[in-house]
């Protein structure tokens, strides 16, 4: 069967998924697409079907499997790489995730609230003291989640430039396989050294506590913890940073919705859920490999075939969300799949929610005259990255 569409698909509007998403979802909701490396995969576009695929063991997350759908030319991982929880299936996955899950409970995240508030306030102080117009990405969006995740893990923030530069290479689609590999090895190597230093006298930070815990369980390996640290570090700053920038644009374009959260900060968490749904910045991260024939939404998918569960298509599915293309902070969007679904649903989701909530409440309260200092049409959206966002966001006040 020939594929009609090629993946990834191009956007024509910065605020909407590629037009083909809607066409596929409404006409042929599970359809074949061509991939950059010449392979093919099924895309799944309806909310219900995306949830089904992501919570069914017959779809594997093993990215090292030779048949796993590759979203960038030349693939991303090498055989023999240290595995992390995101590439594992049951029964291996549960214990790996649960080893670190205690660090990310709702209660643990709440305990971080005062410190996150402090970090946000310090960055806004710096923004206000800096040049006008300023770049919100550099002043706020990137430093807040970077500072938070570095502090949690026990990674010196002085190294944040290093991480940001190499992470940016990892997620850019135009990066060559060699460059991507080099960036990957640089970060992983740094973390191994850092963890080695923590081994003798494990400090009271996430990496230190993991050393102690995993030693008690008899499963401690430095390379494995470095892989987990890498995952948390990369997942922890780029995603939230992009959500801060994009949501700020969306709030400024929808002043009545911004006014609603300013009048009642009790609504901010609902607004965060709606922003997550509306933007769905990691749309294509939820690739899977079918390992046993299964029928989903009337379509037979065979073992050995790749599947892309498109969260962005699902989050704009009118079957799940009325007027799905509209931003409506009061709609009740909590059933979105922006954090994925199933056993791999984002581990850091409650950290992300809190960071976004604190940033929006604080930014618009402390800088009530905030406005864009460029036309929306001129903003550098990350059309070329596997995680959507903004490279720069000029603002004034």
């Amino acid at each position, binding site marked *: 069967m020939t594929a009609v569409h090629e993946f990834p698909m191009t956007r024509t509007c910065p605020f909407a998924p590629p037009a083909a998403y809607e066409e596929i979802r409404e006409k042929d909701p599970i359809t074949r697409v061509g991939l950059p490396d010449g392979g093919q995969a099924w895309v799944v576009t309806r909310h219900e079907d995306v949830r089904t695929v992501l919570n069914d063991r017959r779809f594997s997350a093993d990215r090292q499997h030779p048949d796993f759908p590759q979203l960038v030319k030349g693939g991303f991982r090498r055989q023999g790489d240290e595995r992390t929880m995101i590439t594992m299936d049951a029964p291996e996955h549960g214990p790996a995730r649960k080893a670190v899950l*205690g660090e990310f409970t*709702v*209660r643990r995240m709440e305990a971080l609230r005062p410190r996150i508030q402090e970090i946000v306030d310090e960055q806004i102080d710096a923004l206000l003291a800096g040049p006008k117009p300023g770049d919100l990405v550099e002043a706020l969006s990137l430093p807040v989640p970077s500072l938070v995740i570095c502090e949690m893990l026990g990674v010196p923030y002085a190294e944040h430039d290093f991480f940001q530069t190499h992470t940016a290479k990892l997620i850019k689609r135009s990066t060559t396989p060699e460059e991507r590999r080099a960036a990957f090895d640089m970060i992983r190597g740094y973390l191994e050294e850092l963890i080695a230093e923590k081994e003798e006298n494990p400090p009271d930070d996430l990496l230190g506590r993991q050393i102690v815990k995993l030693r008690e369980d008899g499963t401690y390996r430095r390379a494995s913890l470095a892989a987990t640290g890498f995952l948390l570090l990369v997942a922890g700053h780029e995603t939230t940073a992009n959500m801060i920038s994009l949501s700020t644009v969306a709030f400024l374009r929808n002043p009545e919705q911004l006014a609603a959260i300013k009048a009642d900060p009790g609504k901010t968490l609902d607004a965060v859920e709606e922003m997550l749904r509306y933007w769905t910045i990691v749309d294509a991260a939820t690739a899977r490999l079918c390992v046993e024939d299964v029928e989903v939404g009337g379509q037979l998918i065979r073992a050995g075939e790749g599947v892309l569960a498109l969260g962005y298509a699902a989050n704009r599915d009118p079957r799940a969300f009325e007027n799905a293309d509209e931003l409506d902070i009061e709609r009740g969007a909590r059933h979105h799949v922006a954090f994925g679904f*199933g*056993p791999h649903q984002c581990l850091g989701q409650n950290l992300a929610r809190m960071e976004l909530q604190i940033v929006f409440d604080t930014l618009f309260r402390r800088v009530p005259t905030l406005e864009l200092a460029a036309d929306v049409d001129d903003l550098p959206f990350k059309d070329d990255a596997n995680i959507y966002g903004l490279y720069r966001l000029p603002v004034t006040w």
Partner: protein
Amino acid sequence: MKIIADTGKCVGAGQCVLTEPALFDQSEDDGTVIVLDDQPEGELIEKAREAVHICPSQALSLQE
């Protein structure tokens, strides 16, 4: 009505705790669900239904 939680399926996303902290908590050790009140009444019934609907691993169910 009774809330049934399958901690074997639970992936510790914490969405139930966010939905209703009066009904759900998470283990400090591995983040899995702890049901604080398995027989909700009044307004909490709706919250329990929402938690079941949102749970990413379908670890929660209701016995009517």
